């Protein structure tokens, strides 16, 4: 009987994120001029999926109490790469996909290795590696262009059985195939433990280094999946600095909205997915209510600002001011 209460306590953040998303989506759908249609859902979900992949990546790193400011640039890099190699015959395309995902993993491993073995701060490390990844992206695509296997692209951005957006299915599949096994594994458990209290995790003999390394690596992989989908949507590769940065920034917003604690140890990638979906929906609400689209960046900025300030309420409970200093 009390079983579900513990489940609720465990999933509080994630459930809250789902709640926010559902509420936003209902407001969106009921006020949408074209009404609620399969088409509308497809367009909305295609846009949101990209952010959701990057948000998952960010969530996995944030859970270990780290941060990855290169996720947007890995997305940009893999987008540019995909626009070269995910073309041609089925075999070539398949190899191309493997190459793109492998590149993402490599980027993640570089981040992880520098943070863990180089003992550098995650912020600076990932800003710097992000610049490098962007450099490579720019080398691959000095100008927007390229192509992608359109059959595959259309299959993954269209609809399944005429209703279900394939991108959503792909997102769910990724969550099931990557997040679920990870979070149930010993390494995943250690990642949570590390983020929650690194000292206690060490005292308890949890594999801290392996957990962190795995987290950055998976973040690279998930960002690459995001990059792949970006290519499927746009059919081209573009080394766009501003858009890469925006993905990084929004991924943090999505993670916060998704109930993942920036201090580490709490939250889930599922929450981050719904955080991403909710964040995108909030952005789209402006269109529905006929606001000038120019206000969208400001609106998103303010939502982000409010989201990060929520954590500050915890301060009111601190009764020993020395706790401010950790």
């Amino acid at each position: 009987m009390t079983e579900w209460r513990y489940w609720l306590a465990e999933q509080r953040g994630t459930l809250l994120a789902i709640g926010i998303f559902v509420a936003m989506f209902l407001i969106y759908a009921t006020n949408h001029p074209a009404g609620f249609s399969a088409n509308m859902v497809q367009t909305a979900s295609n846009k949101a999926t990209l952010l959701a992949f990057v948000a998952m990546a960010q969530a996995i790193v944030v859970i270990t109490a780290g941060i990855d400011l290169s996720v947007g640039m890995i997305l940009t890099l893999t987008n540019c790469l995909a626009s070269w190699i995910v073309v041609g015959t089925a075999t070539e395309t398949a190899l191309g996909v493997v190459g793109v995902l492998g590149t993402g993993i490599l980027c993640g491993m570089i981040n992880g290795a520098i943070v863990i073995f180089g003992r550098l701060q995650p912020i600076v490390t990932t800003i710097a590696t992000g610049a490098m990844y962007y450099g490579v992206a720019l080398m691959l695509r000095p100008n927007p262009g390229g192509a992608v296997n359109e059959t595959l692209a259309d299959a993954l951005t269209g609809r399944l059985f005429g209703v279900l957006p394939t991108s959503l299915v792909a997102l769910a599949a990724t969550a099931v195939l990557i997040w679920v096994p990870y979070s149930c594994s010993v390494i995943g458990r250690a990642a949570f433990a590390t983020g929650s209290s690194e000292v206690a995790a060490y005292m308890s003999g949890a594999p801290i280094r392996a957990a962190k390394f795995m987290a950055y690596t998976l973040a690279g992989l998930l960002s690459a999946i995001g990059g792949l989908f970006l290519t499927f949507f746009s059919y081209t590769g573009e080394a766009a600095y501003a858009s890469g940065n925006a993905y990084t920034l929004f991924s943090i917003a999505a993670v916060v909205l998704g109930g993942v604690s920036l201090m580490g140890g709490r939250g889930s990638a599922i929450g981050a997915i719904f955080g991403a979906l909710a964040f995108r929906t909030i952005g789209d609400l402006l269109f529905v209510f006929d606001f000038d689209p120019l206000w969208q960046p400001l609106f998103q900025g303010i939502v982000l600002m409010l989201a990060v300030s929520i954590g500050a309420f915890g301060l009111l409970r601190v009764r020993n001011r020395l706790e401010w200093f950790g």
Partner: protein
Amino acid sequence: MSDATATRPASRGAGMLRRIDPAVAASFGCIVLLLLVGSLYSRSFLSPDYLLQQLKVASFLGVIATGMMLVILLGQIDLSVPWVVTSGAMMACAAAAHGTTGAILAIPCGILCGAAIGLLNGIGVAYLRIPSMIITLATNAVAQGLMVAYTGGFAPQDSASKAMRYLATGNAVPGLPNAVLAWAIIGGAAIWLLSRTTFGRAIYAIGNRERAAYLSGIDTRRITMLAFALSGALSAFGGVLLAGYASKAAQSMGDAYLLPSIAAVVLGGTHILGGRGSYLGTIAGVILITLLQSILSVMQISEAGRQLIYGAVIILMLLIYGRQKA
């Protein structure tokens, strides 16, 4: 750690050596090296005209890096630089469009806008204890939103005031560009502030050990807030100078200054976790970065290669100097 070693009279030579930070020495060494390499490519590299031109370009970065240094000394980071720079430039130009009064108020107006955003950062970091990386990303987004909403997403039509142009391109002292003079004044003020005022010493104290600084009765929150406000004001002033240089503001003019400003500070030997660093080092870092950029373009290395080399150089230098304590 015995008394014997502490009381042994330090020889004068050792004292001198101790005072010169190896990181600062290394950056100046790198500058000489870069000049030598550059002179191999082009004889004009060592000409006074060229060097003065480099110094002028460096002064924009120098002003921005000064603010970044204050914040990094605190053990924090300011990622809102891109849009604070842009806001400063745009608001100054916007004010300049309002007749004579506007033209007079243009420069203070730009700086004040930056200070306001910086103050917001400072309140978030100091009083709400939001991680600086997060809150500055959020204010960056808000500033971007405001500017996009204001300009309509296009390059603003307002042009810089005469004073701005004079400040960025004129020569009040023959042979010495005003921009360099401005940086020299700000740099001098920074050196004075950091070494001769309680504010400066408190910044070092907080960066070293905020807990100890707080228990020493230093108002750590107010100092942190002020440092962020100063950083915002300086970034915005950098933007004002840039707008004067280009005679108008542009949408993403600040993007190119985030990474270099962090890099300049860190390469100059300032500890990324705060508490240690000298302004002399930052000067070296700024010149180093500017020369690096210049050489890369003389060598006709593309933007892509530049990004790659930036990232790699920063990581490399950090691995040598900026380790976290194990």
